[in-house]
């Protein structure tokens, strides 16, 4: 068995794999920061704190999304499904607050 494993093909990683992996690395570096996510899949928006990264899933404590019933809970968001995002950095614009109490 182990013989087979040792002889398992190791292929030169494709550039897609590199990009995907690097993206995961960035999310890992962003753990603890606030994040804004847009995805084509319902409910389309997640805003909250990035608490963990498990393989290619970002675990987000979601404070705001399109409908209130899906907020204030933890979401596992598939990193490679995210179309556009922003991890809030020091010295850069803050993700605006969405207030419900005007």
């Amino acid at each position, binding site marked *: 068995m182990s013989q087979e494993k040792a002889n398992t093909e190791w292929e030169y990683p494709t550039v897609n794999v590199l990009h995907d992996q690097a993206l995961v690395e960035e999310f890992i570096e962003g753990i603890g920061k606030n994040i804004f996510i847009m995805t084509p899949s319902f409910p389309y928006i997640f805003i909250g704190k990035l608490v963990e990264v498990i393989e290619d899933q970002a675990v987000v404590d979601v404070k705001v999304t*399109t*409908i*209130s019933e899906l907020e204030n809970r933890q979401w596992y968001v598939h990193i490679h499904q995210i179309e556009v995002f922003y991890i809030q950095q020091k010295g850069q614009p803050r993700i*605006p*607050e*969405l*207030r*419900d*109490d*005007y």
Partner: protein
Amino acid sequence: MKRHYHVVAISIRIVLNNFGDYNRDGMMYVLKENEQKVKELVRKNPFSPVSLVEPLCIRANVGDEVEVLFENQIHYATGMHFQEADYNVLNSDGANVGLNPSSLAETGEKILYTLKVNHEGVYMFSDLGDPDSSDEGTNINGMFGCLFVEPRGSWWTDPVTGGPLNSGVYADVHHPFLPSYREYAFIFHDEMPTKDVTGNRPLNPETNQERESTHAINYRYEPMENRARLLEEGVVCPDCEGEEVHHDSWVFGDPATPILRGYRGDPVKFRLVNAGVKETHAFHYHVHQWSKDPKNTESEILDAQAVSPQSWYTVQPHYGLGSLQGAFGDAILHCHLYPHFGVGMWGLNRIFDTLQDGSQCYPNGEPIAQLQPLPDRPCPPMPTKEKPGFPNFIPGKLGCKAPRPPLGIVGGRDMTKLEKNAAIPNPRPGSVFADACAIAENPVVQEFNVSLIQLPIVYNRQGWNDPIGRIYVLDEDREDVLSGKKEPEPLVLHMTANSCVRINFTNCLPEVAAGNAFQLVTRAYEASFHVHFVKFDVLASDGSNVGWNYDSSVLSGETIRYEYFADVELKAWFFHDHLFPGFHQQHGVFGTGVVHPRFSSFLDSKTGEEVDHGVQITAVHPLIPDYRDMVLMVHDFALLFDKDGCPLQPPEFPSSQDDPGLFGVNYKNEPLQFRLGKDKDPAYSFSSFVHGDPITPILHSYEGDPIRIRLLQGAQEESHSFNVHGLRWKAEYPDSETKLRDQQHISISESFTLQMDVPRAGDYLWTFETEEDLWNGLWGLIRAFDEEVDFLIPLPDRQCPPKRTKALPEPTGKAPAKAEVVTSPGPVNAPVKSFNIVAFHTPIIYSNWGERDPFGIVFALEEDVEEILNGKNPEPLIIRANQGDVVEINLTSRLERGEFPYPDGIWKYPPVKEQAFYPPSLRISLHAQLLDYDVKTSAGETVGFNPDQTVAPGDVVTYKWYVDNPVGACGLWDMADIRNHRSLGTYGAFIAEPKGTVYLDPFSGEEVETGANVVLRNPFLLDTREFVLVMYDGARLVDRKGNLIIDPVDGILGGVDPEDSDDLVDTYDNGSRGFNYRTERLINRLLKYPELKDLFSSKVFGDPSTPLFEAYPGDPITIRLVNPSERRRSHTFHIHGHYWNNDDKDISSEVRSIEGEIVTGHTVDLPLHYGAGSLYNYPGDYMYRSGNIRWDIEQGMWGIIRVHASKEKHLLELKNNNED
């Protein structure tokens, strides 16, 4: 978030314009905090409009809970019924329906409505305590308003002060993640009883007759007739008479109607609402375009939208104010129905190019109110002396007509210094202040020389003609058309996307015309070329004379140059004159430009030569499929004379706007009264074997060709219903996820592109199918040849058609035989579902109050006939099959002579224009919508050179349909006799269900063959309740005593003033109406217990005679709605407390609780979101109804969906909440 509003309903005097036209008995909703203020202001200003007197517009965000404390100060019970919202129907419905407790408030009382608002949009509210259609009703007098629901997280400010805003028709809406936008409420309403400032019914000074009904926006209207008096009295330029001049602010100052202000580029949302009681209005907005469905980026582009009573749309102009080209100036918005436009249903969108801080004035000295720039947009530049900004660089003179634009007119003037400063870098004729053609770097440039000419036009072979036809032609065709060498037809220009289009327009009309039974002598001395859809400089190329803009038209004999940019494939853009349209548009002053995909070329379909204009052409493209392009332009108010010079359908007095004249399509018609033939059998009216081809357009293609039909309406005031029999197109043609349709409602200025291919050879009927339209000749053919013909080139990218082996068919004068072989397009081993259907006479009892039709004709399954003849009250035939099934129909007729109401062969009631002899046919047929079949055997009609598909008594005809798609609701109706059968009930429905579905009786659980109320069971889907509503109108009923019921007049609650009764009702308002051969006319209820507030209550009157549908909370429900019936007044459909996707095949489409513009041939499937009781599954009685107060609701077009709180013995539960 929770919001709280305290709203009061008050009676108040409403002054609609600065001339003092007013409604003494106005009613409105107002915030409590403004109540005293508005009453005080009105008291102090009895003769001028008060800005606080406007429809109440309040706001909330998606996800909010909204509490409305409603206080009723009207002298009888009223309420606030909200569309779209989620609420407990037992306490917040704003109505008193069925077995619900009343949620109306008595006089002086208050009631608390609690709503959740869960989708963006317009939640219109209105009173349902008084559904009376008379002038004393509530809605008609102004009792309506809107709750606008914005995206979550929004807040709003006053556009003038920038401060907070509690209510108001205009607001600037902001959001942390989205662009700020200007929100404009644009609320149409009609029929408001109005007097002039002297307290009399307003008169039209031109005709000396009573003015057209009031048609207004946000409680304001600016009738031509008032302003005309200022011209007459010489207060302003007396030589300025005309139609369009009444929009000119140089002459009259700004109108009292809404002026929606913004800066160039501002994002905007119009909340377009029809709070009216009767008419379907046609909203048109100059210069701008928007997506039909703002939630769908693949939605088609519109620049005109029909909106029926109690419907709404959100209009988000692409690229913001000024559109892609950054235009600025006044863009007029109006109802395009000319009599409405003329009586004042218009407003202005004023787009500024300089900052307005309150320090500037208009040319007449009126101060320009401050306008806050939107906070996330660049601030517009401050006005300076050299560049004062619009409108202060325009060299106009007060009290005189606006000047002509610089550079445009041949032989006209150059720019003034101020105009030069305001102009673009390279100003040229047609593009002076905005450069649309500069958007692309090197656009294709196409120039057309167009003239407007006058000539007599003959509409049909009987010689019906318009002696003063007026049409656009290319200059190069002018001689040929005037001499008769070329047949007059609407001018259709063709161009590709990314084209800069230049029009050199010459007005060749004689100045003076008419002076006949239809119209007073009129001096129409200027004309223009006003366009839709394409991008242009509104100041130089609008072809109009509005607000503070120029008058971009020309006098007789002059030429003006316009320039436009067709940026993308824009479908067909409408063009017409904007200066005297009320006078001459119905004479033919309309045409269209078709924008094709880039890199297309256009060929003459006969010769293959390149062309740039033509009603029917062949479009060729290197990469996308070649197609045939065909234009159909319908119009009404066609003022025709017969061959002896007698006027046809003249109005009561010349220049009356009360429905004069008849109809045409591409200036032709083929009335059915002339297609009776020797046998005098209406069944063959469409057959070319018997009567030859119609003179109306026949669209030619070969079998398999892709085709695009450009559907437009040229004139003048009415809705029409376009149907194609045997073909279907996508509802949203740029989108793949969309439903299929074969019918389209159209009103003036709307434009639709219907893309499809013609799968099999044969003749396909197209028609504007309401009874009066079809009777008077609005139909034609799409002819697909199977073999080559020498007058049609093949499409270059398709295989050549086989060489002709048989001669083309010719008229024989004799009816054709039945088809010998009937096959379906389905696969050979498809399951076959057979139905043996019989059409026969039987009385139908329409209600528990005794209304009935003794002459009813129904379709039924053979096995059910006996039961019906023995007394079972029939319902319309509703049959079903699944996707993949082949449906075989074996149809027989048992119609008999002498069983029809009008033995002399002239059908009197409900009436149509041009009544004539047309004796009832004993033959019958059955046409189905939306299914796949060969029109030569199974379209259910005998059309063109197709074989006979009608059947005589004693014989059987077979049709084979293939259910290729689970299209849902399909209308079924007879085509053997469109005059004498339809009012008697010859229609039904077919539902195409998903594969594997069985249909069960909701009470017994047994499988059923027919029925309006079933449970759909499918192994992969939830059990769903299916409620089928067959909406009908134009029925002919008698009362208990056997007297003919003349609806709506006999059903109007408050009775009708004999003085009014002649003018009150148009032909197409006549007839009884309801659902599924049932009606619940409120007059019966009122006569029994005269309490308006109880009229819908089952506690007082028992349940209505219309279908009562029952469910348990949370049950999935799909409503299938069809209108296979006959009248041209379009209806709105609304269900209380529930909503659905606009396009049931597109989950991201807009969510609404109304379906509008319903007219003959309309089909729609409404899977209700969240099931019975909506999101919160509240039990109770939910009314389903028309949105038309005049005259549908009163006449019985309503019913109840009852959601039971607890299990009922008679109603089985669905198997969804599985207890396994």
